């Protein structure tokens, strides 16, 4: 199973009968899903079990994705650079059964420090010496050290404040785990048990994936499987190119901005994209985007790729097999030293906000090319709220929650309120789980009525949440977005309302939050947040065009 070329003629190659190809495709997807299931069901970090913040993939030895689990789209393709760097540091030909490799360094193929990538080589059961494939997982660990619990410090200005960097490392050789590596990590995380646990879940998932792919090779024969895999990748590329070719040629621009970088609170951070469709290729150029910033919202290329892959897949069609072939027609231009391709040691932990905004910018550009397929702007945020403190027994807890806005109105109907969109698809924390895990009381959880932009099809609403601290002190890390820049309407629809947030101190003081903040809360203090609404679609016809029954954002109120 080597490189996918030269392409054999399907008519001449008996391995490529359509039944076998489709059966292998289904098998690969099922293997990736099984790997994903092992991580989700057995991991202990809330962000994995509730936010689905983990992903599994199978690769060819050359680093081409074969299949991906259905997971958070933010992780789409994130394993690609990680596997490329791991196999550059440890050539595939030198890998042995029982090996395990891992890394997390954002400046060496990673995304941000909590995301640890893990790789297990797959060997055919017939005893061939070289791996026939690679099984890999990426999982957001609860804490990897750094300035604040959870390893996503909003005030970080250098990566050295964000936690422990792991370059490509060999964690196990021939089944023997290098305990030294684990000891170093254990000394650098606030939650060593959770780390060890979730790493076990990743290893178990990779080993299961490797065993399943090996069994498939045993059944079909390594060479025949290799021919089928190459065909699947080639076909995905051809189908994606065909879909791009069917779109109009041209260049479309869109610009948006993040409120600030969390450090310089008065300076918005511009994101500019130019999407060019030429023939069967697509180029996304970020020229004009802000230079890298002091705060942690710089996005390394892995995250930007995830946003671009999402946009491409969403407009080219879901029935194309999801593998590395889909990504070949896409070219990214990421200006060096910019907020979408920073130089070390820029801080990068809070890149989700940037990837959300840039994904929506790509979609905003594509909406001009294929307006029937793309809605008005989604709220474009995922407010990350982390509360941490000590339990009565002295141990540290970290409670992280991602709070969403709504989806944009579209040609076919109103947007949906309070839902994870585009690169996100994370669950919120149930009120009952949150109050069980942390000394807080939630007073309100509601749709923010009327926050979605007006229109023939209004934008989806944001939400309102109000929390009270019962026992302090707790450290609050708040990463908001869209306080200053609204989600835009489309085709004459209105913009969504911006986000707002306050801290209501126990003594009655009311402190507005300017999008991003780290502070300490004491008993009786409250956090009140209202997330932005999404853009509306089409002009409002008269005064009563919006049909409240069709929209979960029902009747607007204050």
């Amino acid at each position: 199973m080597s490189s996918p070329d030269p392409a054999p003629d399907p008519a001449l190659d008996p391995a490529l009968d359509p039944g076998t190809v489709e059966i292998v495709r289904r098998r690969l997807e099922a293997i990736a899903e099984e790997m994903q299931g092992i991580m989700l069901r057995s991991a202990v970090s809330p962000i994995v079990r509730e936010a689905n913040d983990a992903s599994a993939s199978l690769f060819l030895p050359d680093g081409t994705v074969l299949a991906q689990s259905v997971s958070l789209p933010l992780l789409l393709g994130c394993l690609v650079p990680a596997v490329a760097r791991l196999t550059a540091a440890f050539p595939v030909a030198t890998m042995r059964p029982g090996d395990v490799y891992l890394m997390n360094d954002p400046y060496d193929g990673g995304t941000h420090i909590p995301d640890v990538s893990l790789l297990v080589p797959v060997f055919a059961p017939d005893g061939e010496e070289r791996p026939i494939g690679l099984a890999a997982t990426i999982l957001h660990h609860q804490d990897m050290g750094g300035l604040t619990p959870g390893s996503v410090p909003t005030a970080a200005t250098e990566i050295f404040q964000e936690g422990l960097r792991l370059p490509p490392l060999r964690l196990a050789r021939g089944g023997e785990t290098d305990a030294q590596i684990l000891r170093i990590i254990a000394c650098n995380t606030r939650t060593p048990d959770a780390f060890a646990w979730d790493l076990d879940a990743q290893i178990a998932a990779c080993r299961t994936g490797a065993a399943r792919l090996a069994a498939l090779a045993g059944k079909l024969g390594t060479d025949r499987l290799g021919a089928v895999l190459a065909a699947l990748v080639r076909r995905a590329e051809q189908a994606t190119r065909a879909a791009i070719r069917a779109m109009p040629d041209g260049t479309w621009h869109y610009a948006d901005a993040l409120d600030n970088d969390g450090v310089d609170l008065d300076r918005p951070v511009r994101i500019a994209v130019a999407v060019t469709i030429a023939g069967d290729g697509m180029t996304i150029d970020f020229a004009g985007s802000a230079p890298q910033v002091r705060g942690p919202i710089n996005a390394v290329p892995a995250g930007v790729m995830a946003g671009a892959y999402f946009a491409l897949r969403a407009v080219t069609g879901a029935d194309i097999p999801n593998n590395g072939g889909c990504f070949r027609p896409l070219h990214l231009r990421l200006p060096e030293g910019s907020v979408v391709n920073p130089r070390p040691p820029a801080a990068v932990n809070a890149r989700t906000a940037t990837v959300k905004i840039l994904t929506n910018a790509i979609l905003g550009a594509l909406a001009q090319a294929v307006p029937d397929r793309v809605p008005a702007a989604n709220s474009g945020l995922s407010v990350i709220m982390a509360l941490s403190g000590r339990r009565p027994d002295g141990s540290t807890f970290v409670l992280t929650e991602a709070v969403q806005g709504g989806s944009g109105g579209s040609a076919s109907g109103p947007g949906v309120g309070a839902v994870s969109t585009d690169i996100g698809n994370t669950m919120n924390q149930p009120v009952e789980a949150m109050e069980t895990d942390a000394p807080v009381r939630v007073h309100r959880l509601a749709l923010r009525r009327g926050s979605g932009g007006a229109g023939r099809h209004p934008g989806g609403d944001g939400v309102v949440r109000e929390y009270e601290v019962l026992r302090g002190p707790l450290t609050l890390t708040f990463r908001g977005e869209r306080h200053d820049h609204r989600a835009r309407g489309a085709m004459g629809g209105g913009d969504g309302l911006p986000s707002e947030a306050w801290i209501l101190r126990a003594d009655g003081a009311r402190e507005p939050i300017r999008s991003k903040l780290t502070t300490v809360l004491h008993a009786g203090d409250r956090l009140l947040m209202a997330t932005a609404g999404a853009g509306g679609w089409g002009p409002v016809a008269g005064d009563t065009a919006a049909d409240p029954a069709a929209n979960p954002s029902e009747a607007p109120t204050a």
Partner: protein
Amino acid sequence: MAHAPDQGIEIGIDIGGTFTDAVCRAPDGTLRLLKVPSTPDDPARAVATALARLAPEGGAGIARFLHGTTVATNAILEGRAARTGLITTAGFEDVLAIGRMTRASNYDLVFGPQTPVAFVPAERRLGVPERLDAEGRVVLPLDEAAVAAAARQLAAQGVEAVAIVFLFAFLDPVHERRARAVVREACPGMAVSLSSEVDPAIREYERSCATVFDAGLKPVLDRYLGRIEHILRDHGVPAPLQVMHSRGGLLGAAAARARPIRLTLSGPSAAAIGAAAVLREAGCPDGVSIDVGGTSADVALIAGGAPVLRDDGSVAGFPVRVPTADVLAIAAGGGSIAWIDTAGGLRVGPQSAGAAPGPACYRRGGEQPTVLDASVVLGLVDPASFAGGTLALDPAAAEAAIRRVVAEPLGLGVAEAAEAIHRIANAAMAEAVRQVTVARGSDPRGWPLVPAGGGGGLHAAAIAEELGLRLIVVPAAPGVLAASGLLAAPLEHDVSQGFFRAIGELLPGMLREAIAALRARCAEAMAREGVPPEAVETEIRAAASFLGQGHTLDVPVPLDAADGAADGAADGAEDPGEAIAAGFREAHRRAYGHTRDAPVRLVSLRVIQRRHPAPAPVPPAAPATRRPRGERRIRLGGVEMAAVVVERASLAPGEALHGPAIVEQADTTLLVPPGWRVLARDSHLSPLRMERQE
């Protein structure tokens, strides 16, 4: 624990999407099977038709009348539930609309509501002041006047059913129960469901979903079951109506009315029970069944003689955490359509031609090639004797559709294309079986496969070969598995309680008391069904996780560990908490491949009590019919071959039939490929064994 044989006729009737199936067992064990067309506009009408045909002389001799129904699920899917309101903790009226903020499909840019907002829109979701904390303590007393006002406001909107969902009610139902009393006083006749009774477990959105559906189904099921009871009275049937619930047991009609959300998987769980009964008859406690219909295939796992259960199911795509038979439904059936994707790959399903227009070979306007069309082209199905000869199939139409849509675009011959379609359908079904076995840590290779439905027998051998199974057990009547399952199902009640506490924080005495209280509640329910206490079999299960995990695993609680409470002393019996923790750690290793000696959280406890029906009498042997055997050209594995065609009823006792062969009966076709052989039992009314030879 079986009770005395029921002296009388037993009838099971299961309503499916296309047909309503009935099985009637006489006191001597003789079975009669019947299929009548379903009547979706009034499902009870088909029941009346079936009953009239099975008991034309009147129903006086009918000792048991058992029913499986899709009414509950269809009412939710088709928006025909009662107008429902929700009374909840003030400040949380939108929990049902917000849900968990996720969407079902990752790559969709445009999508609709992902939560059941249409079931209970904003104007029918009302908050009242009250609050419990995470320890279950009251921090804000219930405002009863607000509850009464909310109830009246809902009634004024025409609401017939009210769900009451308060935060942390699974820890203490005091406010929910009081609120129910207030609602009943303010609005007599209003149906009410409490979250603490429907789904007593943590996570308010999921609990809300189950509770609003339960409430909205109450008026619907009350009317429907009333209709059936009326039909039974009209026919002079003395037996009480019993209904199949989703866990795979029967409930009296009164209990079914009280908790209709338990009926959402009534039919598939009856089929799983039917498969368990077939396996028992074949001497196998464990196995997998696959019921292949026109649009979907249902896969169920049987362990220890009963269906494996799950408690994280869904209805209409919304979470409903009520224990159900773990039936995995996939979109692969005889009507699944073959098509070419944009990358030039051949796909099968998920679109189905259904019963109308149906596969191309039906000649009812269907032009797309389907899995059944492929079976016809490959010679696996006899066009003349399909469905007992009631529907003549047109092989030329099947060929033409496959040629136009699949063979020509891919440059294949028609037979090659048909075989590719057939193999992909096999693989989809094998993948589903793999998902419920291998992917959950169990090795199915020693297990038998039970094929059912019209199509199960055509795909069973290929599924078995793919997964390394060696034995296939074919039911006597594969087409009415759910209806026969009704006759084999136990009468069963269960009650549960939520905890969400580390087991180390729970004293053994507390756990034993909780178990004893649950047993008492369950025993009351069994007594109301007229079951004497000595006939009751008890099972105790715990849902547990490691601290921090979001998913639970289900573990048995040994009765002797639970029983320490009976005399108030542990008497050296195992601590139930430790038994749960140890059982959970082992279950975790089996399911996920890793475990550790870490603290375990008890999420909920459940007590189940049941009484099994009397063993079925052995029917008198029917003489084998001596029909001439035919031969047909079939194509398998790229090779054309001659297959012997045999009618099932003509197999002589003890006869071995080697593949390639085809065994036909009115409701299904069994493909016996080369390398397999069929062993006829002493009677064709027993399950047929098909074994792989090496």
